[in-house]
């Protein structure tokens, strides 16, 4: 029962923090002047539409209207610069598929690979395989993802011409996000995104498994008569995985925010690029909506990670306090 109460408390707290952040962002963003990029009668038309949308009312009134609109109609406003007068929810909904696609593909590749590499490195600890993998991990963690993206793009796409350099447009790929052409053009961005995640997972898996392998219960398992493989599979791995799983969830969030750059390099029409565009073009409603989106995901992921710790590790559940 206290578990439910705890979850409930956490969720309330998260909503409170979310609300505070959103109000803060809203106030700060509305304090900026609204640019009108036209002259003469066109400017007048635009100004009238802005007025109809309520941009010139006092900030508190706008906040009230926005909250009312969100809760009664799920109307977050219209995008004024990116997609003329289209509702913001539509604009984002159009672009969310490629972002989710890239992130999911990247997770599918990197999680198994990362864990396998980590296990391999831990098993062959201090031998040459371990050193190779550790060096690789160090390289891939330190260097930013866009350096790899540029390298991969230059070598694989421009020099060797094996894969297309940028993401294919929806038209070319036969109007479906799941066609083969689209997939081929997404390979490079997914690869660039995965490097960092694979390296991180490898590192943490290796560390956890090493610690598990040197613990007492492993010695007991071996003396009991289990073979090395059996003892590792049945005992060490399960214990080592416990901190890894929350790490996977947090790497999902990390990929989501890291995909900004990859989307910009490979011209993927996703939410990250939309976000950057809304910032540079000062499209306020879109900015608020995408900010809310990312903030919410970040905070929700925090809760899920915390709860998953409790879920997976009975020691935490039993309440060992800090």
């Amino acid at each position: 029962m206290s578990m439910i109460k705890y979850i409930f408390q956490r969720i309330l707290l998260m909503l409170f923090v979310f609300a505070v952040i959103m109000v803060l962002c809203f106030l700060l963003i509305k304090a900026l002047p609204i640019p009108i990029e036209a002259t003469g009668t066109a400017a007048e038309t635009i100004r009238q539409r802005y007025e109809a949308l309520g941009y010139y009312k006092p900030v508190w009134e706008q906040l009230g209207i926005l909250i009312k609109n969100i809760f009664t109609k799920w109307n977050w406003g219209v995008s004024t610069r990116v997609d003329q007068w289209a509702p913001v929810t539509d604009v984002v909904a159009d672009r969310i598929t490629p972002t989710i696609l890239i992130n999911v593909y990247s997770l599918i590749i990197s999680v198994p690979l990362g864990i396998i590499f980590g296990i391999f490195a831990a098993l062959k600890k201090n031998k040459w395989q371990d050193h190779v993998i550790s060096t690789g991990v160090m390289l891939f963690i330190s260097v930013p993802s866009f350096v790899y993206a540029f390298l991969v793009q230059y070598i694989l796409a421009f020099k060797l011409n094996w894969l297309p350099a940028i993401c294919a447009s929806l038209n070319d790929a036969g109007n479906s996000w799941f066609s083969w052409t689209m997939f081929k053009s997404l390979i490079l961005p997914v690869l660039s995104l995965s490097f960092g995640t694979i390296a991180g997972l490898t590192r943490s898996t290796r560390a956890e498994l090493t610690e598990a392998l040197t613990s007492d219960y492993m010695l007991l398992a071996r003396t009991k008569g289990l073979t090395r493989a059996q003892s590792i599979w049945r005992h060490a791995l399960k214990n080592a995985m416990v901190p890894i799983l929350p790490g996977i969830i947090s790497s999902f969030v990390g990929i989501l925010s890291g995909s900004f750059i990859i989307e910009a390099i490979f011209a993927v029409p996703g939410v990250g690029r939309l976000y950057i565009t809304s910032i540079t073009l000062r499209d306020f409603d879109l900015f608020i909506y995408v900010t809310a989106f990312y903030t919410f995901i970040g905070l929700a992921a925090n809760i899920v990670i915390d709860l998953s710790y409790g879920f997976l590790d009975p020691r935490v559940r039993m309440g060992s306090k800090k």
Partner: protein
Amino acid sequence: MSDKNMKKFDKEAFTFVNNDRVLTDVKLDTKPVGYLRDAWNRFKKNKASVAATVIIALIALFAIIAPWCTPYKINQADGYYKQVRPKVSPSAKGLWDGGYNQDLNDSGYIALQAIAFAALDKDGTNKVTWDEATNYQYNPVAKINKTFETSSLVGSESKTSTFRNLHIDSYYKVGFVYVNGLSKEQYDSILAWQTRTGKQVIYPIVDTSDPVVFPESNRNDANEGNYWYAMTKNLTPLYPNDPTNLKAGYHEMTLEEVKQKGLWALYAKDYARDAKDDPYYYGIDGTALSFSNVAGATEFRDVQGNLVFRSVRTGDVITYFDGEGNRLNTLEGATAIFRNADNTLAGAIISSATYFNAEGNPLTAVTEENGNVEYFDAANQLVYSYNAQSEVYSDALGNPLRVAQANGNVFFGDADGRLIGLIFSSRSAYDQDGNPLTVQMDGTDVLYLDGVGDVVYKYVPSTKRYYGADGAEISPYAGLGATYFGDASRRFVGFISKLGDQDGRKIITVRNGDDILYQLEDGSVEYRYIAATSSYEDGSGNPLVVLNDAGNCFFKQTDGGWKALTFETLYKDADGNVFDVATQNGTTTYSLGGSTVYSFRNRSYYDASGNKLNVLSRGQNRYFVSESGVLIGGLLTSGVQYHDADGNLLTEERIFVNNSGNVVPAGSTGARLAIIRYSRGGSVVYTYDALNKEYFDAEGNELTQQPSGGAYFVNGQNRVIAGIQAPVADQIKMADITTSGEGGVFKNYRIRVLYYNYYQYLNDHEPVFVLGADSQGYDILVRLAHGCRLSLILAVAVSLINLVIGAIYGAIEGYYGGAVDMVMERITDILAGIPFIILVTLFKFHLVDTGRVSVLGGLLFAFVVTGWIGTAYSTRMQFYRFKGQEYILAARTLGANDFRLMFKHIFPNALGTLITSSVLVIPGVIFSETSLAYLGIVNFNGTNTTSLGTMLNNGQAAGINKFPHIIFFPALILSLLMISFNLFGNGLRDAFNPSLRGTEE
């Protein structure tokens, strides 16, 4: 033994049994080692960390010292050497020789060789052989990598062409450029430098007058200096068929031919001499004018020193005043101005726009200084006026005029652009009874009001929903191919659709000859379609109107009735009479009273007799309408008219010839403009030869055209009353003389230079960019060093500030605990929840864009606002761990206050982790800064500043496949920095906390 023996012992009886000098109790001579020294010992053993430290030190050293090692400064950019490749030294060969590989066909190969030809040809005699050119130092082609043939489809035949993969030196490739605006002193000093060093800088000027051998597209091209030989517009070299008779034409050369005969040079024929000593401008009466710049204005005085003209420049506009200070009307749009040998004005052809009103009567436009225009008719009465500031047209009495909207209206004009007719469209709304509704906008919503002013319908475009008078949503009937009918007064009667009629009854379609009957199940005819008139009737024979116009909506009521919102587009003529519009077989006819006025088919309009009508382009025309949409006037621009210098109108006559030289009408195939004749009162005044671009007077003498650089002033009748004519320049071989400048020295030289040598004249060293140049011509080495400096300083500053703030915050949190801790934790939660990009963006918008803080400051703020959270957290952890220890309790009992306890006792435990985490912050900051600059959110680009991320962004923009060196070096340095800092941080962590070694997080 006796007692007395016991009392006396001889000293010699005693011998040392144990006389060791060596003590077995060795004194411990290892001193106690301090915390930091201990860590340092451990750190030294970790080879990777030591290597990383060395690399970091090297990069920091590079960042500090590199700017002194190159001759370039950070703000020095050379526009011609944009994007050149890295070159270690002027004579480098091999990897870093400033070259790149490119596939070129024959013409491209010849074009590069031509640079060497021209460089060797110092006096323009063109006696250079192919081999000499190939082996010359200035030849951009360093090496031919391989030759291959490709075939391509040209039209329907396939053509093979030879391609060569060449290794081209990007420095020599620049070749020759034109340099303008040199003074006589500068020109002389270049000549002196040439003699002193023996390196030729100034090369012969090219004669660019013949468009056959010097295509117009080559003029003002970036490579113009290299186009010194006869070529087509595809750069294929041309050679005269008969070198002694150039009128015999030219043929294209193959590579073999070029090797044998060389290229045909186009150097200007005159030899170098000083330009005519002509310092004066001239009035149109031939008086010489000298000019000087006085207090921001330019004054023109005659030889006696009287002020004749004065000019003031504001922005792009130059205003002229006469000697008394009266403003002069500058002539705009002169086609040609002619000048006599004695510098008097010989004549002019001046163009101006013509205006008509809607009836076709010409109007004259008079523009005032503030931009307002007034239009007068032939009787000099004001007809229209235009206010430039409010952009409003008014009639003669000052009433504002409504300009007709362009959409849907068609205006017909005659060949001179006079309005002869129009079709004017307007869209009206009706309800289900045929009553008209007024349309009104409420924000983005559209309201339809009835005659009393009540809202009948409301339409919200963003949701595409309709609302009734009570505000409730109403949904339109989803047609399914329905045909809607109304009676003669547009009252909604009903419809037929696949689902039945308006009452839901099933409709049976029955053919009756050519007509179609729509019957109900009981056999009664509800509607009838008459094929002969293409119209519908109801069962009783009353004619019906089809209401299928776009946008029509029909709303079914709960009581079975129907409400409707229909639209009708009406077409009217100039007097407001409504056309009857009918479409049949692809032809739309507009009729009045039964007779067709206009018809439209095949995208053209025809009048009643079937003649094609000329639709007036709307761009400059303005049509004025009344409230009800009736045309009340118009202001039409059509074409230009010409007049001479006295303001007399000239008639223009254009003569076209075809290829065989016969006169043909304009617009026929193969017609080419040959001659334009300007006549006044029937006799030809000027003739223009389009082929040779020359003007002739009435007697056939060639007229000298006035060069640009002067100004002419007209009075109200368009007569040229005064002018400032620029001096005429001589074309000389080595340099062009253009006029400008101050006082009596009026010469500015325009020369063609070999840029490699000119660069050495300017900078005293050969151009060598060790890491290449970026897209604007900056040296990458210097920029990289400055970028490293900026990034490193930013990172270290952020790290230190975060360390201090985080440590203090975490110490207070951890020490006091309880409510203080909870509140502070909540604050950290909120701050931590804000995504970083938002922070950066908000700071950028509020502080940087408004100019209050520099870009660096804004970014620093953003980092500092949330960066300390991690440090605070780990400090807090440490405090919780050590707070309960007994020595703390002991110290408190002894009377230590809070502050002393916090910072002298508990805090040093955390020192190790703190230092490690603050060092590890540095690569994080560098990474964030590079990402933000790369995405373009933060921009450090300036002539004096740059950062690593900005350089990466520039490299990305330049194109990785074409200029990889621009992105490669910053990426390399960035990667090295990040890896080294991470290894360094790992080493530190192992050194300070050996118990954590191996867990790595």
